[in-house]
């Protein structure tokens, strides 16, 4: 091995240094190219990614519009509550630990939290999901002090609905809860984001769009821990429209108090016969709508749904009941308007009468003697109305009942109204493909048989009779506040206008007046100087033979109706009280009386009356529960046909 010379050595070194220079320069060139690709060529992509990293959009939920009564008294407002939320992008890696700790510190069920996360897993991951609605202050503090351990958990102040206490007008207002997936798929819910609170019943549902308002946003910069560093922009939420309802809070309360005092469930509707404005709409038993705002717990929801008394049902427009004697008003109207009878038409009642080979009883054993229309209404004489009904035939009864709104949808601005039924030959043919037997008409004439009607439609009948034939559409919205002030809402057009002859109207009014102020069954609604006019009715829950079979298994006591308007001349209010299992319409009358007193006291600026409970008395022996010897045929009944 030769020792290299120094110059050899030096040359060698120089070469290798040049190689090193080349390697370094090459590496730097590659780095320069690499950075160029990221910083210049793909800049936009990375800018978006950086933006998404640190920018968060937080929704500022808009308060729903406040609901006022007709006198601008606040009915439903908002209060702030706390939601505990989860940002899944932050919590991703240790979500289950976070949920376990959250459940521990807030005293909630971990399984429920997990299920909530799972249920909302399809929502965009950047949007925080609500884990605990309506959180208590203790829960909020617990989350706050463990901010660093509970990665991605935060809390949010949100406006929630505050309904009046004591469940006032629960069915009227309805309730709000989170929009469900079925609704999101519907076109009328377009523009509503998952997680939004929407009206699910009552006014809250029917005027949801007006009430919802527009959510605001807050864009904030967060650091890698999700901590908020600063705010970049804020769009404040726009509160929903304020709505003035046609409801009178005092009348509404009076009706509900009346029911509570008497101990009945049921329904009541009171209308302004001049325009169809709803002054009061009651359904009992009610529920507490506050339980829904801020998330209802499953136990409460289940009990509401399985309750045999069906507290979620709005009986006023979703319950159908046999109208009993109150239907005689429709039959009287039909007889008079068709010209089949005049007010002076007389019938002799001997306690019953035969039609088509069968004997139909009147409720009064000895009979009413000879009565004209006024007295027939006053006494609720079955024989009179059997006779008129027989003369009319079922189709003319159907025609005039419909004109008064019976068996029709009223078109009220509340969701899920059901349609009642007044039978006709056409209906029977379509429904059963059978011929109508003239004998069936006799039962229909006193509101039995297949006749089944909603309390709301009965109120519409009374309104239409009271105003002489204009069937206004009952409605609840009086005015909307768009911001600058109240804008009156154009009321919906009347469903039908069938002018009734004044002498016909007068005769019916006289008869109804006498029911309350004469020898009739409505005496318990009598108010001195108010000329309350009305009619009681009793609806069988079940046929007499059925009642005996079912006795002890269910409440088989009859329902009581009281339909009314007041005063007799130029009526100011018209309505219905339907009291479940009150056994007789007379027991529903005091509820109406208290409401009417309240209404007039308010109208005249007098102090509101106080309720003096009138306990149900012994049933006066009057109404036709026991009327026909043969119970009328119909679905669910014993199947015997006259």
């Amino acid at each position, binding site marked *: 091995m030769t020792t290299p010379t120094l110059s050899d050595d030096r040359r060698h070194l120089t070469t290798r240094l040049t190689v090193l220079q080349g390697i370094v*320069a090459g590496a730097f060139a590659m780095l320069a190219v690499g950075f160029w690709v990221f910083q210049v060529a793909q800049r936009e992509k*990375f800018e978006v990614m950086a933006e998404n990293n640190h920018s968060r959009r937080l929704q500022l939920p808009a308060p729903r519009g406040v609901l006022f009564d007709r006198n601008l008294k606040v009915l439903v407002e908002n209060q702030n509550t706390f939601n505990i939320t989860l940002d899944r992008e932050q919590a991703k890696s240790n979500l289950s630990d976070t949920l376990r700790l959250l459940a521990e510190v807030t005293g909630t069920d971990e399984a429920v939290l997990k299920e909530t996360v799972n249920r909302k897993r399809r929502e965009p991951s950047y949007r925080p999901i609500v884990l605990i609605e309506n959180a208590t202050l203790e829960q909020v503090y617990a989350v706050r002090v463990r901010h660093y351990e509970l990665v991605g958990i935060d809390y949010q102040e949100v406006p929630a609905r505050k309904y009046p206490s004591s469940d006032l007008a629960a069915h009227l207002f309805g309730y709000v809860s989170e929009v469900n997936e079925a609704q999101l798929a519907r076109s009328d819910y377009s523009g509503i984001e998952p997680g939004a609170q929407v009206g699910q019943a009552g006014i809250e549902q029917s005027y949801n769009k007006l009430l919802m308002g527009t959510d605001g946003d807050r864009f904030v910069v967060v650091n890698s821990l999700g901590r908020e560093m600063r705010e970049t922009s804020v769009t404040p939420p726009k509160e929903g429209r304020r709505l003035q309802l046609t409801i009178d809070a005092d009348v509404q309360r009076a009706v509900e108090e009346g029911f509570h005092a008497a101990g009945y469930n049921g329904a009541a509707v009171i209308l302004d016969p001049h325009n169809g404005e709803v002054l009061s709409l009651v359904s009992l038993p009610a529920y507490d709508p506050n339980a829904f705002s801020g998330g209802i717990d499953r136990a409460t929801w289940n009990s509401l749904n399985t309750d045999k008394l069906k507290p979620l049902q709005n009986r006023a427009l979703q319950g159908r009941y046999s109208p009993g004697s109150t239907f005689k008003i429709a039959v009287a109207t039909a007889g008079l308007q068709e010209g089949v009878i005049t007010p002076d038409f007389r019938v002799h009642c001997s306690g019953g009468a035969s039609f088509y080979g069968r004997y139909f009883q009147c409720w009064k054993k000895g009979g009413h003697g000879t009565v004209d229309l006024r007295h027939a209404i006053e006494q609720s004489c079955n024989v009179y109305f059997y006779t008129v009904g027989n003369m009319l035939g079922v189709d003319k009864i159907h025609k005039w009942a419909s004109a008064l709104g019976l068996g029709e949808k009223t078109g009220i601005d509340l969701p899920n109204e059901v349609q009642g039924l007044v039978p006709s030959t056409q209906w029977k043919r379509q429904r059963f493909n059978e011929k109508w037997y003239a004998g069936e008409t006799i039962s229909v004439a006193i509101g039995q048989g297949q006749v089944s009607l909603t309390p709301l439609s009965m109120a519409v009948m009374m309104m239409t009779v009271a105003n002489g034939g204009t069937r206004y559409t009952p409605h609840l919205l009086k005015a909307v506040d768009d911001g600058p002030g109240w804008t009156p809402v154009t009321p919906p057009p009347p469903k039908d206008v069938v002018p009734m002859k004044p002498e016909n109207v007068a005769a019916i009014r006289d008869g109804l007046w006498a029911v309350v102020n004469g020898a009739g069954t409505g005496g318990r609604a009598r108010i001195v100087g108010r000329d309350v006019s009305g009619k009681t009715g009793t609806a069988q829950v079940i046929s007499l033979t059925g009642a005996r079979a079912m006795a002890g298994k269910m409440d088989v006591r009859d329902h009581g109706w009281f339909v009314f308007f007041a005063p007799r001349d130029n009526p100011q209010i018209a309505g219905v009280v339907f009291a479940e299992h009150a056994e007789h319409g007379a027991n529903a009358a005091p509820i109406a009386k208290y409401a009417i007193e309240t209404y007039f006291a308010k109208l005249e600026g007098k102090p509101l009356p106080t309720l003096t409970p009138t306990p149900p008395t012994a049933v006066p022996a009057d109404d036709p529960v026991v009327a026909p010897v043969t119970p009328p045929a119909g679905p669910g009944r014993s199947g015997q046909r006259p």
Partner: protein
Amino acid sequence: MFERRLYFHFDWLLLVVILVITGIGIAMIYSTTYVTLPDGGHAGPQVRTQLYALAIGLVAFLVFVALDYRLLAEHSLALYGALCALLLFVLIKGSTQMGAQRWIPIGPFNFQPSEFGRVVIALILAMYFGENRRGARNPGDLVAGGIFTGVPLLLIAKQPDLGTAVTLIPVFLGVTFLGGLRMRLLGVLALVTVLVLVPVAWTFALKDYQKARIMTFLDPEKDPRGEGYQQIQARITVGSGGLTGKGFRGGTQGQYKFLPVAHNDFIFSVLAEEQGYLGVLTALGLYLFVILRSLQTARLAKDRLGAYLVGGIIAGFSFQVIYNVAMSAGLAPVKGITLPLMSYGGSSLIAALASFGLIINVRMRRFTN
């Protein structure tokens, strides 16, 4: 000792560029560690620490300029012994931070001996190959050099600080390459490394998190929240900077801590975010100047000892710069390799300034006997 003639040959230009780079680093540390409060804010404590380190580093620089590098080389064995002793001491008694034992606490500061490994290795290898009158040509030389490098490398790797340990290898390669190592041997070395060391290391030496890092580098999207997080965030940081950057303290990735240890391993990412591609080119240009100027110094060196010394130091330095810059753009697996002169870290800065003292030392003394 410090003659006027030496002063005349002092490489002011290199010193100025080095100080400029250090200054940029301090500015970036200031930017990322700034503590924002509702009513203003203040600089983070790291800036002050770095300034202290700069002062100490300048003293070390002066010491390493003033003493003749041949004198230092003569004592390299003692320095080498001291290094190994300190590394052993760290392993046994050092303070533990973030799961690694790297530091010796000295008052308020933590001294990290491994950062001085490169200088000492460069000195002893340059001494060994530069004074034996034949360079590093034979397998025997290679083995000897390998042992010199291997002992501290293993000690550092044991801490565990694989990143710093790996930076010793380019020093060894740089010296032996300049020492005339036959290309064939170099090839064999590379082959052995790939065929033997990689599988062996993968099986026995690498910890699970280290394996995970490498796997993640190959496919960062596989685990965007875990190991791939830093890499993705590094790319976002760099890419979103664009051509001109988001401005001083205007970055979002570093400022809001999306990029971990931004002031340390990822200082260059912050530079790229806030100063943009133009800032990147400027910084790369400064680093390239430092490296090429140093290689020039090696070329001018009076003796092989000087050339090897500079070559070893600058090989390690270049490797660190290239690797860290690549990593800061997510172009290399995330390893704890700092960017010399810019990254936060006192020991690193002091060691870097000391090593440039040696390089200027060699250039300055090129005409002396």
